[in-house]
């Protein structure tokens, strides 16, 4: 699992040139899970979220261009 985490980190850097990253800011907590699921269903390679200082969330979605 640790290897897979490291590999994902390394791959996300290595494959950067093949990917596009989208940051969707100011997502309310009530909508967060639904939107993250839509992005995964849409084909995003990785989807994550971070909490902003104002209590809203930023979703980061990485799509492959290949």
């Amino acid at each position, binding site marked *: 699992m*640790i290897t897979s985490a490291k590999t994902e980190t390394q791959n996300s850097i290595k494959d950067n040139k093949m990917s596009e990253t989208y940051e969707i800011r100011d997502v309310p907590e009530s909508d967060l899970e639904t*939107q993250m699921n839509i992005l995964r269903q849409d084909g995003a390679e990785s989807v994550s979220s971070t909490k902003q200082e104002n209590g809203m969330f930023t979703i980061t979605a990485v799509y492959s261009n290949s």
Partner: protein
Amino acid sequence: MLNKFIASSVCLVTLAGCASWTDETDATLAQKGAGTTFNPDSIKTYTANQAKVLTELNALTGLTTPSWDQVIQAGIQYSDSRCDAYIGALYRVNKDLKADVQKLNSVGTATAALMGITKSAATEIAAAAVLFGYAEESINISGSRILFEMDPASIRSLVKGSQTAFKSALEPNYQDRTGAFTVIREYITLCLPSTIEAEINNAAKNAVQIASSGNPAKGVAPAVSINESQVKAKVLTYDADVYSLLLKSYAFPGGTKEVTAHAQLKTWMVGKNIKVPVGPFLMSQSYKEQWREAVDYLRKNGNPKLD
């Protein structure tokens, strides 16, 4: 809970400060190497130290008998606080270096003091890695000048990206202390100066240059730059209205992609020269007008689901 976190963090910081490696010089380590024999006393000390760290992590969870996954989360929380302190120090040094650049030309001691602040913060995060079992000999916290001079926001973004990727790859159900500590140790190393430098180097090595032709008639030379799309996220602001909700329920009914509807919407977007994927399109306030247009188009093309 907050008080508990602060108290436990202080305890962990104190333990981190006791790590023996901080007393060892680079030159000595380089001479001795990592060693090939086990020292029983050293193992005893190491085991006792791990037990103390575990006690503090248990306290940090606020639970009587936390699971190993909860211990991992506490360790990650502790690591995040140390990492934030380190990057905060980089911010201060970067700001002060820029503000005092002229004075520093004549006084080297101020520079040394600023570097000292950052190295001190780096020492804490590195010592924390040692607490969780990282090999002392393999940590280098010296940090090149690039970490002090580079935009700290870029460093923060890089480290946060690594941490986010790590967390998304982390699976539950760790069963023992060894596994839990290994995870925390790996996570902490993402914020070590040597790791950050390595990732900066990786990003530089994988950079793809794009070139635009010059204009001989006007005397304009060709220009080469890094492709921004590979290093910069497209930032969108979230919004939703009745049209975006209709489109989401059309292309992703019940949260699952409906292939035909998705393809139909994508085809319309391509026709409108909208180059983002469907998901971000449906979430960005920049496309509010286009949401309504898309619904109108799809309604006219026989989609009763959108009425």
